[in-house]
C-alpha cells in the first residue's frame, strides 16, 4: 500500500501534505491538481506533515488535493540509448514532448523501450560477479555500452544464465544471477539509481595522473585540467564563461560529455542543439552530438528541478564511468543550483547562513565535487568523471559563499577577470589568479614529461613568472611614466604581453584558432618562451613597443593559419628572421 496524503498548505512551490502513513526524507511523491499529476520531493517532515517541493507550478492547487507517495527517491533511468538525448532536470526527454510549450506535469520516457539492441555477452555462466560487473555489451553510437550488474545489488552473485548474442529490448532479461542463498534475480539492460547518492562500484579512487586536453591554451598549457579532476570557472557576467564551456565541450578529449544547463539561458542550449549535430569531434571524427547528453533546466523552468538537474547529470556520468569510459560533466552554472537551494531553505524558514544561503552549502558543494574522479573498476579497467562547473558570483565578487565553498572543493580554478573581458582579451582567464593544483602532482609532472617534453612543468612555471614580472613592470611604468623607467622594464612588460597575446588569448570564433591541440601548443609555447629568454637591445621604449607589436601581429597571423600549412611555416620563418635580426648575439 502506498502512503497517500492531502494538501494542507501551499507556499509557492512548497506544499505541506498531511500524510496517512510512513514517508521518507527525499521520497518522491505525486501531487494531483485536477487531472494534472506533478512530481514532488519530500524535503522536511514534521509529525504527520511532509513538506514537499513540487517540480512544477502550483497554480490552482487547493487544500485537500490528493498526494501519492512512491516509496523511492528521485531516480535516474540508466540504460543504452542515453547518448544524444536532451533531457530536462528530471530526465524527461524534451524531444518527445508534444507542443510548443511544456505543459504542467509533462512526463516522457528517458529512453526508447521498444528499440532493439545488438547484444553480445561478455561474462560467462558460473562467473562470480558483484554490482557494476560487466555482463555484456551493446553498441551505442560508437561507445561500447556495457550492461552491468545493477549497482543496487549488494553482495556477490553467480551468473546462472546468460542470453545468447542477439537483438533485445532493454527490458528483456539478458542474465539471471543467483545469490549465495540460491535466490535468483533476472537482470535487464535497464536499471535505476537514486541521483543524490554516489555510485561506488569500484575498487579505488587513485589520484588523477593524466591531463585532459581541452584545446584551450590558457588551460592546457598554463593550468591543465586532469582527467578525473575537478575545476571551476567563476566570473562576472559577460566574462565569457559560457563561450569557454562550449569551447571545452566541443574540443575536450573525452568519450562522453554531459552538459548540464542549470538555470541558464535557453538560447545557449538552443545553440548546442543547433550546432552539435553538425560539428565534428576533433579526436574521433564522429559528430559531437553522438557523444553528448544534454540536461537542460533553463532559468524559467521550475526551481526545484534545477537542483535535481546537476545530480541527474552526475549520476549518468558515473554510470558511463563504470563502463571504463572518460566522461566530462559540465554544469553551467552551479550558482543557480545554490540559489535553488537558497530559495528552498528560505521557504522552509530555516535560519540563513551568509547571503541567506543555507548553512550547509559548503558541505553540499564539496560532497558533489567529490563524486568526480578517476576510478579503478573491479575488473582492472579505469574510468573517470571530470567535473567542470561555472560559478556566477554576485557582482563579480569572488568573496561570496558559492565561490568560496567551491574553491575549497575544486582543484582547478579558472578565474575570469572583468578587466580582461573589458579589453576583449578572451578567454578572460586571469593568468595570475588562476591555478591548477595538478601541476604540483608528481604523477602529472611525470605524465607531462612523457607526453609533451621533459621538464615541461618547469617551463610552465617559467612562463608564469614572466607574466608576473611583466605585470610588476607595467605597474612601475604606470607609476613612473614611460620615460621614468629603464627600457628593460618595457622589454619585460612586452615579453609578458607576447605570452598573453599568443598563448593566453585565443579566438573561440575562428575556425582554426578555436582548437589548439597539444602538439601545436607545445610548439607555440616553446617559440614564445625562446623569445622571452633572449636579450634585446632597444634604443628606447618606443622602439621596444613597436617591435613587440609587430612580433605579436606575426604570431597572431600564425595562430590563424592552418597547422603546418605553407602559410603557417611562412609566418614561422618570418618570426625567426625578425627575432634573429634584433636579438643580441
Amino acid at each position, binding site marked *: 500500500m502506498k502512503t497517500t496524503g492531502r494538501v*494542507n*498548505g*501551499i*507556499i*509557492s512551490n512548497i506544499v505541506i501534505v498531511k500524510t496517512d502513513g510512513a514517508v521518507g526524507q527525499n521520497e518522491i511523491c505525486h501531487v494531483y491538481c485536477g487531472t494534472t499529476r506533478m512530481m514532488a520531493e519530500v524535503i522536511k517532515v514534521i509529525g504527520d506533515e511532509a513538506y514537499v517541493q513540487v517540480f512544477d*507550478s*502550483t*497554480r*490552482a492547487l*487547493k*487544500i485537500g488535493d490528493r498526494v501519492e507517495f512512491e516509496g523511492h527517491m528521485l531516480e535516474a533511468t540508466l540504460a543504452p540509448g542515453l547518448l544524444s538525448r*536532451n533531457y530536462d532536470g528530471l530526465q524527461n526527454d*524534451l*524531444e518527445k*514532448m508534444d*507542443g*510548443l*510549450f*511544456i505543459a*504542467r506535469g509533462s512526463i516522457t520516457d528517458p529512453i526508447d523501450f521498444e528499440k532493439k539492441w545488438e547484444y553480445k555477452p561478455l561474462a560467462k555462466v558460473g562467473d562470480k560477479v558483484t554490482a557494476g560487473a560487466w555482463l555484456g555489451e551493446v553498441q551505442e553510437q560508437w561507445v561500447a555500452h556495457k550492461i552491468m550488474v545493477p549497482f543496487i545489488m549488494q553482495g556477490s552473485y553467480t551468473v546462472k544464465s546468460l542470453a545468447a548474442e542477439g537483438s533485445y529490448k532493454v527490458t528483456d532479461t539478458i542474465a539471471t544471477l543467483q545469490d549465495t542463498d540460491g535466490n535468483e534475480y533476472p537482470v535487464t539492460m535497464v536499471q535505476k539509481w537514486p541521483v543524490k547518492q554516489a555510485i561506488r562500484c569500484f575498487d579505488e579512487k587513485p589520484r588523477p595522473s593524466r591531463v585532459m586536453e581541452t584545446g584551450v591554451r590558457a588551460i592546457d598549457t598554463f593550468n591543465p585540467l586532469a582527467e578525473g579532476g575537478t575545476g571551476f570557472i567563476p566570473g*562576472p557576467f*559577460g566574462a565569457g564563461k559560457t563561450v569557454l564551456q562550449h569551447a571545452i565541450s566541443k574540443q575536450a578529449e573525452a568519450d562522453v560529455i554531459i552538459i548540464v544547463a542549470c*538555470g541558464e*539561458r*535557453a*538560447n545557449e*542550449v*538552443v545553440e548546442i*542543439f*543547433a550546432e552539435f549535430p553538425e560539428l565534428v569531434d576533433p579526436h574521433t571524427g564522429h559528430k559531437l552530438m553522438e557523444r553528448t547528453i544534454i540536461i537542460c533546466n*533553463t*532559468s*524559467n523552468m521550475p*526551481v526545484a528541478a534545477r537542483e535535481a538537474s546537476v545530480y541527474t547529470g552526475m549520476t549518468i556520468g558515473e554510470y558511463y564511468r563504470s563502463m571504463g569510459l572518460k566522461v566530462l560533466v559540465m554544469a553551467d552554472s552551479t550558482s543557480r543550483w545554490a*540559489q535553488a537551494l*537558497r*530559495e528552498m531553505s*528560505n521557504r522552509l524558514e530555516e535560519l*540563513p547562513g551568509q*547571503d*541567506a544561503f543555507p548553512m550547509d552549502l559548503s558541505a553540499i558543494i564539496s560532497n558533489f565535487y567529490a563524486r568526480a574522479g578517476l576510478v579503478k573498476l573491479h575488473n582492472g579497467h579505469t574510468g573517470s568523471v571530470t567535473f567542470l562547473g561555472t560559478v*556566477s558570483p*554576485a*557582482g563579480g565578487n569572488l568573496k561570496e559563499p558559492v565561490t568560496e565553498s567551491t574553491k575549497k572543493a575544486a582543484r582547478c580554478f579558472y578565474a575570469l577577470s572583468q578587466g580582461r573581458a*573589458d*579589453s*576583449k582579451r578572451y578567454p578572460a582567464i586571469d593568468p595570475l589568479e588562476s591555478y591548477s593544483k595538478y601541476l604540483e602532482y608528481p604523477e602529472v609532472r611525470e605524465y607531462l614529461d612523457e607526453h609533451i617534453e621533459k621538464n615541461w612543468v618547469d617551463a610552465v612555471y617559467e612562463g608564469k613568472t614572466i607574466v608576473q614580472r611583466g605585470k610588476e613592470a607595467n605597474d612601475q611604468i*604606470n607609476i613612473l*611614466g614611460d*620615460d*621614468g623607467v629603464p627600457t628593460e622594464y618595457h622589454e619585460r612588460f612586452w615579453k609578458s604581453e607576447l605570452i598573453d597575446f599568443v598563448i593566453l588569448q585565443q579566438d573561440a*570564433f575562428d575556425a582554426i584558432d578555436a582548437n589548439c591541440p597539444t602538439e601545436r601548443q607545445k610548439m607555440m609555447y616553446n617559440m614564445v618562451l625562446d623569445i622571452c629568454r633572449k636579450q634585446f637591445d632597444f634604443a628606447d*621604449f*618606443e622602439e621596444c*613597443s613597436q617591435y613587440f*607589436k*609587430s612580433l*605579436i601581429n606575426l604570431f*597572431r*597571423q600564425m595562430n590563424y593559419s592552418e597547422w603546418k600549412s605553407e602559410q603557417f611555416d611562412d609566418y614561422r620563418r618570418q618570426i625567426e628572421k625578425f627575432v634573429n635580426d634584433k636579438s643580441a648575439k
Partner: protein
Amino acid sequence: MTTRAFQKVYTKIDNITKATITLRASGVGNDELATVGGRLAQVVKIMGENVTLQVFSGTEGLATDSEVVFHGEPPKLRVSDALAGRFFNAYGQPLEGGELTEGEAREIGGPTVNPFRRIQPSELIATGIAGIDLNNTIVSGQKIPFFADPDQPYNAVMANVALRAKADKIILGGMGLTNDDFLYFKHVFENAGALDRIVSFVNTTDNPPVERLLVPDMALTAAEYFAVDKGEKVLVLLTDMTLYADALAIVSNRMDQIPSKDSMPGSLYSDLAKIYEKAVQLPNGGSITIIAVTTLSGGDITHAIPDNTGYITEGQLFLRNDSDTGKVIVDPFRSLSRLKQLVIGKKTREDHPQVMNACVRLYADAANAKTKLENGFDLSDYDERSLSFAKDYSEKLLAIDVNIDIDQMLDTAWQLFAKYFSKEEVAIKQALIDKYWKA
C-alpha cells in the same frame, strides 16, 4: 467585476498588513484572484484554512469586514487583434475606459516554451546606432536591457530603437513610468504613425507600486499571442525593471521572507528569468525580442538587480556620457550582445567581427593613454594617435544620435584606422587588410 453565482464571498478578514490580508476560507486555489473591498488581490499563501492574499493597490482603508470575493481563476488577459493600438492598465483594462470583451481569456505567466522547440535566433535587428549595430548587434529573439543612470535618455533611445526595428508589433510594458514619459512614448509612436502596431500596459508612478508586478506578464501574454498565434515579430519594451524588482522586494518583505543581497528576495533571479526567458525565436517565424531598461544607482552594476539581470539577459547596453565629445554613447567596454556572434560576419560583411574588436582594442589603448595623461606623464606618439582616434570613434560611431547602416559603419571604421594607425597596429587578419584598408 460583477459577482457570479459560484463565487465564494467572505466578510471576515483576520489579519491586515500593508500589502497583504489573511482570512479563513476554503476551496481556494493557489495564485487565484480575488476582490477585496473592491480591490484586486491574488492568493500567495495557503496554510490549512488560512489564506493570505496580496492586495495589489495596498490595504489602506480596508476594514476587517471588507467583502472578499474569490474569482476562481488566476489573472487573465483577453487576447485578440483588437489589442493593437490600445493602452491598458496593469490589470489589462483599457485606460481610455470601456471593457475589452473580445477574444479568448488567457492565463498570464503561462508555461515555458520547450527549449527543444526553439529555433536559434539568426535575424539581425538593425537600429542605425553604431554602438549597437556595430559593437553589440541585436538579434530577434534576444533579451537585452539598457543599463543606465536615471538621468540618461534611455526611454528616448528605446523608443528610437523600437521604431527603427521593423517589428510587426511593439508592446510597451511601463512600470513606474512617470506620466511625462508615458505621454512621450504615446506622442512618439503617434507621430511615427505607428500607433496601430503598439500595445501598451502601463503602470505609472501615480498607481500603487505592487500593481507593477502584473505588467510584464500582461505584456508578454499579449506578445505570445501575436508571436505564437499570428507568427509575428514582436518587440517588447519593459521599462523600468528596477522598479519592478523593488515591488518584488516590498511584497517579499511583507511576507516576512528573509532578504538576500541588497534587501532583494532570494528568488529574484528566478523571478526575473521567468520574464526575460519569454524572449524566443519560434519555428513559425514569429519571435519575441525583449528590450528592457534597468536603471542603476551611480553606475553600480554590482547591485543585486543589475547583477542578476546581467546573468539572465543576453548582454546589456550601457549608456554613459562621454566627457570628450559631450555626447551620450553606448559604452563599448561594458556593453555586450551575446547573440551578435550569430549574425556578425554572416548576415553582415565578413570584416565585421575583426573590425569591431580592433576598434574596441584601440579605444582601450586610448583609455590607457588618458590615464597616463591624467597622471601627468608624457604621451608617446602612439598614445596621441589613439586619443585622437578615440575622439573620432566616439563622435562618428559610438554616439547614440548617429543613424547609418552597418556597411557605412564598417567603412567609417576603416577610414579611422587608416587615418591614425599603421596596418600592424590595427592587427587584423591580412586577407581583410588587403581587401578593405583605405589607403
